[in-house]
């Protein structure tokens, strides 16, 4: 048992924090919320220059050979900074999926370019009728033609599709609705003219899209992983994505807690700092319990993932807990910041809006509770 981060991991965290404090101040975050693309190529290149895009790829693919825990640390800092842009989509949803499922030439082609910051990817999974992170519910069809497939249908809540070079589209190649087999992953050129996307307006002001595939022609060699067996692949990537999202959320919640603690020590009412009041102290204790529980379970499950120990239970527990916990931390943060924190220009809404969006990403508490119920034999 060892809860310590290694010296390298501590350095990673410190350098990420100081880089993001300088390069990603709240003024930049707000500017990017209004920006059409939602990030700048310059900022993207700088992150790539630090090796972040390839943090978890082996050196042979242009990465720096870190493990899943390193990625979680980096994401925690990104959540703290409200990082704008398609890092999560590209590295977690795109990069990790290719790393896990891709063949040699796909890894060569995609991972190296991701690591260099030359490519943006995302995952097109959820659909309007179900909006569940469940491969059995996929209805978007990929019909086999001679040497290619034709993809038809609509994907919804696809992050960063508007700037993606490639989409990993999860489509049904066989079988019926409600069946896990017959699901296949395709690497689809996002610039195909048969793909139409439209930006959604979201509470977190992140970039999510509706993506319509109208007979999009995808060559056979663009199948990622095995034909008809993508269901299991998706479950695997969803586990990692859920934990990655947890790390991001915890980073945000930690910022909220730190900000509120400093405020409560300074802000005086009734002639003394509000942090001396027990009612306020109890809010803080609850925030700390929520946050630290979330961090411990996220890293524990992340460690299990990196060691390839079965951890369906721990991952589901992590996302279920963190989804609710970070929501509570954000609410209490508002309560402590009171009127000031309700103002649009304050940092508090940046975090509470993001916590709300992230709550549902890769399954909210209800979704994960269903997985847990199955795990305990119900």
């Amino acid at each position, binding site marked *: *048992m*060892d*809860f*310590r*981060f*290694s010296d390298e991991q501590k350095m990673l965290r410190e350098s990420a924090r100081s880089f993001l404090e300088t390069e990603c101040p709240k003024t930049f975050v707000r500017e990017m919320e209004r920006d059409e693309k939602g990030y700048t190529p310059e900022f993207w290149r700088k992150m790539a220059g630090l090796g972040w895009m390839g943090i978890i790829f082996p050196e042979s693919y242009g990465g720096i050979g870190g493990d899943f*825990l390193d990625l979680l640390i980096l994401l925690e800092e990104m959540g703290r900074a409200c990082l704008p842009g398609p890092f999560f989509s590209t590295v977690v949803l795109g990069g990790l999926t290719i790393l896990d499922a891709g063949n040699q030439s796909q890894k060569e082609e995609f991972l190296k370019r991701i690591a260099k910051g030359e490519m943006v990817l995302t995952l097109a999974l959820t659909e309007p009728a179900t909006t569940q992170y469940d491969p059995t519910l996929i209805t978007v069809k990929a019909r086999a033609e001679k040497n290619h497939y034709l993809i038809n249908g609509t994907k919804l809540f696809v992050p960063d599709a508007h700037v993606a070079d490639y989409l990993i589209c999860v489509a049904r190649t066989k079988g019926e609705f409600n069946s896990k087999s017959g699901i296949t992953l395709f690497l689809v050129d996002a610039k195909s003219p048969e793909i139409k996307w439209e930006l959604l307006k979201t509470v977190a002001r992140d970039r999510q899209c509706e993506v319509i595939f109208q007979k999009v022609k995808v060559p056979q060699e663009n199948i990622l992983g095995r034909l008809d067996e993508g269901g299991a692949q998706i479950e695997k990537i969803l586990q990692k994505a859920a934990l990655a999202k947890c790390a991001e959320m915890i980073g945000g919640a930690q910022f909220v*807690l730190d900000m509120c*603690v400093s405020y*409560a*020590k300074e802000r005086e009412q009734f002639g*003394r*700092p509000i*942090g*001396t*009041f*027990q009612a*306020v*102290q*109890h809010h*803080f*204790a*609850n925030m*700390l*319990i929520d946050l*630290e*529980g979330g961090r*411990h*379970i996220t*890293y*524990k499950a992340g*460690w*299990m993932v990196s*060691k390839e120990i079965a951890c369906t*239970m*721990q991952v*589901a*527990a992590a996302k*279920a*807990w963190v989804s609710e916990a970070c929501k509570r931390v954000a609410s209490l943060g508002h309560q402590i910041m009171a009127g000031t924190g309700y103002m649009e220009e304050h940092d508090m809404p940046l975090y509470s809006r993001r916590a709300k969006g992230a709550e549902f990403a890769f399954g909210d508490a*209800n979704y*994960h*509770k*269903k997985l*847990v*119920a199955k*795990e*305990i*034999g*119900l």
Partner: protein
Amino acid sequence: MDFGYTREEEDFRERLCKFLDQELTEEIARQNWEDKGVGPEAREFSRKLAANGFLGISWPKEYGGQGLSPTYDFILLDELGKRWGAHVPLDVGYTMVGHTILRRGSEEMKKEFLPKIVRGEIEFCLGYTEPNAGSDLAAMKMRAVEEGDVYIINGQKTFNTEAHYAEYHWLATRTDFDPNIPKHRGISLFIVDMDSPGITVRPLWTMSGERTNEVFYEDVRVPKNRLVGEKNKGFYYMMEAIDSERNHVFTPCRLMPILNDLVRYAQETDFNGKPLALDPRVQDLLAQAAIEMEIAQVFAEHSRWMESNNIPMTYEPEVTKIFVSELEQRLVNAGMQILGLYSQLEEDSKWVPLKGRIEWYFLHSFMTTIGAGTSEVGRNVIAQRGLGLPRA
């Protein structure tokens, strides 16, 4: 980071499980958990635990221990907890008092008490709370006055749960009566033989049927060599022990049997021709409990890891304490909801489900957020020590 156990630790767990599955009967488990009072069966079990090398693992060899990591003690607590055993039968001595004797006791005191604790032969009873000193413990009034080579002690303690079967009282009293010093500076700790003349133990019965006690001292003479450590330092010793005590007492595993029973009940019970296990409401309640068990476990693992590696703890065991105790209440309330009308039936009643254990736990669970410090005081500690918020 590493969230696993070593090979040696897993081997120990395996040997232990084999032993417990054979030796730990329901009767023994209920004797040492429910504070029915440790009876002859639990006493014998305690000695057997020691004889098989499962007690004293983290204690120094010179006092009968094995000098290994406290991780082994925590594995013992976990495995007992999973079997309705919750803690070692004589746990006040083993998981609380003994550590302070080791840290602060004289060599003579260590030699006298530690080997007996490690052999599972003696038990202590905490003598802290008084009728007017609960959360404000330092307000205690009980007095010990020096006279020759003894202290003469007078006053009253309350909620001293093991007093009717423990051999020794681990007693905190006031030894400096200067009204001008901070009240926590005038308190000392003593080890008192429970059969000393002048001690009267009277039962108090809790709403869940457990016996606790009030203890009266009338001119009880306690030899000076039974003062623990230095005079007037008792309150500091109590506070320095509290984190480890929380780690040892609030083990999430002890809630596992409740959850497992409820899952089994849901699987085996039909409602309207359909197993309860398929009811989304039941699934939701039990899944939530299972999730919180995972969180509780990793909280415990964290603070235990700190203790095992001598990393100073400030608020971490308090977090575990609050979380585990409040989880117990939520879990039991979920259980009562799932059992519905049946939930009100008591043990031995006709139609009672799950031997009435959930109903008993429901009654018992009111104590967990009060005993060993209320959740409210705990939250103040977390805010002040964990986040540096100012005291009022």
